[in-house]
């Protein structure tokens, strides 16, 4: 089940909200936990048992790690938990990648296992790992209640597409959270804005990028349009989904940290990764980069640590070599910035913005390629002056057809609309906003619903995560 679907919006969510509202406070977590398992099972069927098993295992390990804190067994349990969690993730996500790589390098043909990838496994595995490590470190106490723990891991707002929620961020909220008019209203607003980003902008741009991949009327302009459209599509898709997750969390009384902070206004790759998929970046920093030594063991070791983190980041995004290459690409850029470029970028804003957008655009072309060869071909297409026509009829057609959507996407990828809203809020326009805001949100829900009802095109980009 995905948030941007009629089944979720008009069956599942109203039903869960109604039950949640009528249940006493003690039972509210059970409602979230059970409905989340149902939500997961809707898409993954019997794999919900694997998920439930992971939750039970994570809960037991947390209890054991804490119980044996003052003995070596605590570390043993932690290592065991990490191995099992990562082992499950490796099996489902990376086995065929591993087999394919062996086949390619040794020129043999071991048959692929074609294992179905459980949706959200990368997200919930990282949540479980962070919990177990935090319990081991003593940062958080283990959760004694299985229901509360299950609620933390499984809660459907953030289950299949993040943000990766740290247990430390919501442990008190599991037991004691506020349900207020303001919070609920803000949650609804955030959800609707995320829903609009996903359905109106991301899905529309996705239709265009899908057409591009089958086009035979290629041109340099067409490649640039595709690259720009994909860069915007993935941002609005991912950040839209995160917004929906954060909004839903708020409706149920939870405060999640933001996951995207207008990354395309960044002036360096370093800054970009502090604004893009923030929960993943901080996870890798806290659980891989810093334990490896971070920047505390000399430049050489820091560079090595950066490479490890970014190769793993690439791999986390997908089980294919273009993702590894994508990770290495960012590792190299980050190292260059750390060594000398960042100082220059800090002093040259315009150049820095152009630099950032250009490199991110190239990065996402690499990210979206179906293979390394495709990636090379797509990047070459951007610069094929002379080999490809500059423009083509199809490119002009799609520029005209998607120009407004792209322009809107560019504007909404910046904080300008939000800043304008904040500016108006403190003025006489506040009374106007009092009515306008709910009406706009209602309109967006209606329009978004219209797009869902009409379209069969509603891709879920995170199936590979």
């Amino acid at each position, binding site marked *: *089940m995905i948030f941007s*679907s*009629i*089944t979720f*919006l*008009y*069956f599942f*969510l*109203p039903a869960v909200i109604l039950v949640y509202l009528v249940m006493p406070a003690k039972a509210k977590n059970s409602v979230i936990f059970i409905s989340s398992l149902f939500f997961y099972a*809707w*898409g993954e*069927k*019997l794999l919900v048992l694997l998920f439930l098993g992971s939750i039970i295992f994570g809960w037991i390990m947390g209890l054991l790690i804490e119980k044996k804190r003052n003995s070596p067994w605590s570390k043993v349990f932690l290592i065991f938990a990490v191995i099992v969690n990562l082992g499950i993730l490796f099996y489902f996500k990376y086995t065929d990648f591993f087999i394919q790589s062996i086949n390619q390098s040794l020129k043999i043909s071991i048959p692929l296992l074609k294992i179905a990838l459980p949706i959200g496994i990368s997200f919930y595995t990282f949540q479980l790992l962070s919990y177990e490590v935090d319990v081991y470190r003593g940062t958080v106490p283990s959760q004694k209640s299985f229901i509360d723990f299950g609620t933390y891991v499984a809660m459907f707002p953030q289950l299949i597409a993040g943000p990766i929620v740290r247990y430390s961020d919501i442990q008190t909220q599991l037991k004691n959270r506020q349900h207020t*008019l*303001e919070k*609920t*209203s*803000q949650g*609804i*607003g955030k959800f*609707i804005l995320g829903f609009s980003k996903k359905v109106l902008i991301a899905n*529309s741009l996705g239709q265009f990028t899908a057409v591009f991949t089958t*086009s*035979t*009327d290629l041109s340099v302009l067409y490649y640039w349009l595709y690259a720009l459209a994909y860069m915007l599509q993935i941002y609005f898709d991912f950040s839209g989904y995160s917004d929906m997750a954060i909004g839903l969390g708020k409706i149920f009384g939870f405060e999640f940290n933001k996951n995207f902070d207008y990354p395309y206004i960044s002036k360096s790759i370093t800054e970009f990764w502090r604004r893009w998929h923030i929960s993943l970046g901080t996870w890798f920093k806290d659980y891989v980069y810093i334990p490896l030594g971070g920047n505390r063991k000399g430049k050489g070791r820091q560079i090595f640590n950066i490479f490890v983190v970014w190769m793993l980041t690439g791999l986390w995004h997908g089980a294919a070599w273009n993702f590894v290459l994508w990770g290495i690409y960012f590792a190299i850029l980050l190292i260059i910035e750390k060594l000398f470029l960042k100082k220059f970028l800090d002093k040259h804003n315009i150049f820095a913005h152009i630099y950032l957008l250009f490199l991110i655009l190239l990065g996402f072309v690499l990210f979206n390629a179906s293979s390394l060869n495709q990636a090379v071909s797509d990047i070459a297409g951007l610069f094929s002056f002379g080999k490809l026509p500059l423009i083509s*009829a*199809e490119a002009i*057609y799609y520029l*005209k*057809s*998607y*120009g*407004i*959507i792209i322009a*809107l996407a560019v504007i909404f990828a910046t904080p300008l609309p939000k800043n304008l809203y904040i500016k108006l809020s403190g003025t006489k326009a*506040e*009374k106007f*906003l*009092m*009515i306008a*805001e*709910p*009406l706009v*949100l*209602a309109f967006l*829900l*209606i*329009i978004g*619903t*219209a*797009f*869902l*009802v*009409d*379209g069969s095109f509603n891709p879920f980009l995170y199936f590979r995560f």
Partner: protein
Amino acid sequence: MNSNKIKHILTITFLALICFSFSGILIFAPKKDYSMTERRTLKKVPAPNWQNLSSGKFMSDFDDFALDQFPLRDNFRSLKAVFSKYALFQKDNNGLYLYKGWLSKLEYPENPEKIGRQISKLNSIYKTYLENSNCKIYLSIIPDKNYFLAPKAKFPVMNYDYLLETVQNKLSYAEFIDIFPQVSLESFYKTDQHWKQEKILPVADTLLQVMANQKVSTFEFFQLENPFYGTYVGQAALSVKPDSILYGVNPDFTQVQVTSYNSGSPSPALLYDMNKAQGRDPYEMFLGGSDPLITIENPNEQEQKELIIFRDSFGSSITPLLIPAYSKITLVDLRYIQPSLLKNYLDFDSQDVLFLYSTLILNS
């Protein structure tokens, strides 16, 4: 009460109202069986069982049901079409476009693989039935609406020259009859992909001049009372003026006998089926719509000339215009009959054989 609190109450109220209202209607309102605008059956709630639950089919069927039975579905589809066109300035909606009152579907690019498959099918017919016969073989290709409309609207256009050249070259045993000059945008319905029977007399004339050394006969045209909303109307979900269907009648028609082999056995059929004219797709009034094999016998034709047409749906409306020139016309639609079964129904001897296909079918 401060304005923020009012805003919060209004937000929750409006959104809850929308959400719960539509949920309630979706759950409790009677379910529709069929969509006239989309011309298809609508999904109902699937019955759960272990098999469809464990395979996920129940869930995907339920999602389809939720989409199909959503309240005011047609209105929402129209809203999306209007919003896409007039707010987002998108040129097409799910591949459908509206240009100065004309609805059409983007048909590009040319697909060499699909063209090749269609050619292979026809060549197989030739090799199996026609190569060693005395049949005179003709080929004619019908341009689709986009040939005329897409360049006007500056939309992507298929390479029609490639398609024409390829098909002609691969079917070089057939005499090519070029009907492109006899067709224009006005030959087509504004809301449907098909051509208008009253506008294709020049096409019929060209075909008959080549095949039968005759001019086309005279026809008196009558208009159906009901307006004709073509297939594109439902798909596009935009408000457009309907077409009118006209059908031509010739004195020979009083004695014409039409036989359908839809069920495998011969049964009487109609040249113009007035029941279908009131149905979900009024264009089906021409020879009753899709049919694997139809014969039309005209006892008024004295020379016993026979014609076999391998055709698509465009053939349904042009065939009546050819009747006066032939004592028997057999229509074959290879989409609905296995070529190997043709020997049970047809003797290919010395008939005129016409491969008559639209660019839409050749490219699909």
